[in-house]
């Protein structure tokens, strides 16, 4: 399968980073791995880091190699977040010539809706309303402007980059953050890798200015709603063409990599979606899902944690795990199991994905953040806090797993008294939740 070799190729030549993600017994560079997976699955990824740490570059280069389009095209389709962005600059505009001369409203779509990979640089600098508009449209791949609508059958991968909070940035609001399946930070670089970065990275293998111009010209010349299908088909054809170009160029560099075509990509996605889930994964997710709920009322507020019986549980560390988050966790865990060529999704895959799928979309209590802020780490405080909280839940779960299975068996038989006993033995919200009728 080509993607594992693509990963190696990127890690060796195009984007350097330390392999800090442990999946079972293997280690990966999380940024490269999750960006490739997001491309395959047409997911949404948020990339965080300091200025010039390679957030946009990584998304652009990896998109080239997974969507098979020249770097210049991907860059042309990249949106730069700032408060003065408008729908007309991002998505579509009226053909002013036709409006002036013929009084007709002809909508001219921009490149963005047709690009299979969308990157928004500094997405947090877009005003909230515009973040919402774009994310909604990417989510459904349905684009509307002045009464006209484009509906695409093929999915899109979406990458948003974000600088750590500084002056001039708008905070992304929680419902928008929840749209991102996964969030990855650019890592601290090993000195040897730093040396390579200093010398400059040659990405000419991904470039083709002429071809990009040709693609952009084609789209711009025919970007009316009636020809959308034609453009979509065209993009798929040029992508297949550039796939062969990339394969040849990579071969010339001494790597023999097969880049999967559209049909193979479809098959890969099917394989990922049909990856079996181990019962332990379901048990742990059930356990975490109940532990995160506030037991003192649905309107959660960390100030209630003081003196609460459940104060050492996950509920006092992180705010919530949304349904969208659970879906992302499932999909990305399956993708990791597929990537590792494991037979099923197990706890190792789940534990690897959980912090990446949660840390950006849930608020973390001040107490938890304060606990970890002075610990040595090479990730952000927020990521570390979520990772630490998850590890602690996992340990509790391992202790209670056997009781959990027992309780579920009692539930099948309607033996609530026995479940009650298990609840008093463990004091854990999971067991209490089974008693809810």
């Amino acid at each position, binding site marked *: 399968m080509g993607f594992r070799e693509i990963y190696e190729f990127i890690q060796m030549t195009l984007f350097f980073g330390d392999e800090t993600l*442990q999946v*079972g*017994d293997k280690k990966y560079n999380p940024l490269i791995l999750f960006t490739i997976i997001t491309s395959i699955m047409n997911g949404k990824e948020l990339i965080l880091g300091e200025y010039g740490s390679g957030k946009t570059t990584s998304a652009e280069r990896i998109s080239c190699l997974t969507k098979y389009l020249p770097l210049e095209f991907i860059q042309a389709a990249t949106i730069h977040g700032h*408060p*003065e*962005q*408008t729908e*007309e600059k991002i998505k579509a*505009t*009226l053909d*002013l010539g036709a*409006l002036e001369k013929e009084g007709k409203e002809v909508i001219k779509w921009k490149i963005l809706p047709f690009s299979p990979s969308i990157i928004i640089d500094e997405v947090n600098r877009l*005003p909230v*309303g515009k973040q919402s508009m774009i994310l909604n449209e990417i989510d459904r791949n349905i684009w509307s402007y*002045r009464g006209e609508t484009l509906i695409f059958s093929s999915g899109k991968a979406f990458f948003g980059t974000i600088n750590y909070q500084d*002056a*001039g940035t708008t905070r992304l609001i929680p419902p928008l953050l929840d749209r991102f399946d996964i969030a990855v930070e650019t890592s601290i670089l090993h000195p040897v890798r730093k040396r390579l970065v200093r010398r400059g990275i040659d990405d000419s293998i991904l470039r083709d200015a002429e071809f990009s111009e040709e693609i952009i010209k084609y789209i711009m010349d025919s970007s009316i709603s009636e020809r959308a299908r034609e453009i979509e088909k065209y993009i798929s054809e040029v992508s297949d063409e550039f796939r062969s170009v990339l394969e040849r160029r990579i071969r010339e560099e001494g790597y023999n990599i097969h880049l999967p075509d559209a049909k193979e990509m479809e098959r890969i996605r099917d394989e990922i979606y049909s990856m079996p889930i181990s019962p*332990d994964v379901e048990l742990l997710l059930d356990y975490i899902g109940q532990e995160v709920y506030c037991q003192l009322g649905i309107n959660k507020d*960390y*100030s209630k944690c*003081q*003196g609460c019986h459940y104060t050492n549980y996950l509920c006092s560390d992180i705010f919530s795990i949304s349904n969208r988050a659970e879906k992302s966790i499932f999909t990305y865990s399956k993708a990791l199991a597929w990537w590792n060529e494991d037979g099923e999704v*197990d*706890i*190792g895959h789940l*534990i690897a994905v959980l912090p990446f799928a949660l840390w950006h979309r849930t608020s973390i209590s*001040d*107490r938890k*953040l*304060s*606990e970890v*802020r002075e*610990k*040595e780490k090479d990730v952000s405080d927020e990521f570390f806090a979520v990772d630490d909280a998850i590890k602690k839940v*996992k*340990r509790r779960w*391992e*202790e209670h*797993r*056997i009781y959990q299975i027992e309780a579920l068996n009692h539930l099948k038989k309607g033996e609530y008294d026995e479940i009650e006993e298990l609840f008093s*033995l463990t*004091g854990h919200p999971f067991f209490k939740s089974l008693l809810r009728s």
Partner: protein
Amino acid sequence: MRENKSIENAERAEKIFKEVRRRLYYPPVTDFEISEESGFIFGRRLKLKIGEKDLKLPDDALKGSIALNLNLWASHPYSLKTILLEEFWLRDFEKRSQIRALFDEVVAAIDLLLNRGFDEVLDYYRTRKAEGKQDILLYAFLERIAGGEVSIDESMERKLKEMLEINFLDRREMRLRLNLLRFAKIVDELIETFSPKIKQEDFGEKEMDEALKELARELDQSEFQELCQLIGKKTTGEVKKPEKIWYMERSRKYSIYIQPYSMTGSLYPSEIREFEFDGSVEEFSPIDSYGKLIPGIAKKYAYDDFEGRDFSIPDAVVVIDSSGSMADPSKSISYAVLGAMAVARNYLENGARVGVVNFSNENISIPPSRGERVFDAIILYQGGGTHLDVEGLKNYLRDAGGVDVIMITDGGIENIEEVSEFTSQLNSLTVIWIKSDVSSDEFSKRIKKILKKNVNVFEVKNESDIPSIAVKRFVEVFGRC
């Protein structure tokens, strides 16, 4: 030939190690090496040492041995914190390290057998050579748990029965303590000298600091100090300033609301939005509207405070009373110190600096700064009279610039009139009144004298009052002096 054998051994060990890790849900021991003795290599990454003796065991017994070692980090004791706590509970036992290690082994082994269905652990005990009476008892115990029988002498049988009455898998803190003490009484006289696989001394200073911080959050002050003393006796150096660690960690539990500055200056164009019919013509942006006034095309500027508006937290000065009427933080819990630390920590974590004026017989002060010295100045106990050098404070605040002032006292300030006159001139003042230290009605009367419009008072009678502290301001940033 010998080389081939060792490659074979390494491959076999790797295969088994990986399998065991997977079955134990990937514990934090991610690597191993083959060594003379089995044990662990501590450091940045925890590594398992598989002893050469163990490599001679059959596959299942080797699996059991590796699983037992890994389960010490997957299940119990899991962290240095538990190890320290357990040895602290066993402080009256001379052989506490050995008892603790044996107890942890029992818990890890039972967890493997009963919770994880890892029967290979029994194969390990069946094949390993017992090195003392404690090993014989442990083996008999595990066999009995698994439904088997081992013949042992009468006195051992009695001990075995006592052990069988302990629910080792109940690891709630209270139960764990009782179980450990019961176990200690059973095995104390049996234990012959052996070196535990995990010892306090194996851990570095950083790991010890982290474990102590975690313990400080859980133990009460006197217990924590006692634990630090015990560690000091065992390790190379004393634990420095245990009371400071305790207050600092305890204070992490509390978030103090600090109202940020808000700017109410002029508005600037900040965003391009749709122009609406009721919009003002002045807001219309002809360039972004392509010169057209068409619904949906026409755009306007939305106005807002300018970019980069300052929502930062200002520096703070904690004026803390450490006179004799206040609780001595090293002897009993001082809510003044705890509250002050919570306030200071919240300012520091928001990027601000904190200055301290510690007053009693004299004002001992440090200018607004960051780092440990802030906490050192807060915890300093003078224990003398209660005189606040107002002139000194005035000069200090003038030098410090626009800062939030938080005063912490029981109200027993002797020169309250002078203090009251000065504080009434401040833009705002937050007073944390430590009611638990109030020893006479006179103090209550005195505190009322500083109650002015610009003063916010929070009463602290016990620890649960600390989260209600909030630092509010009475003027906007542009109105500050």
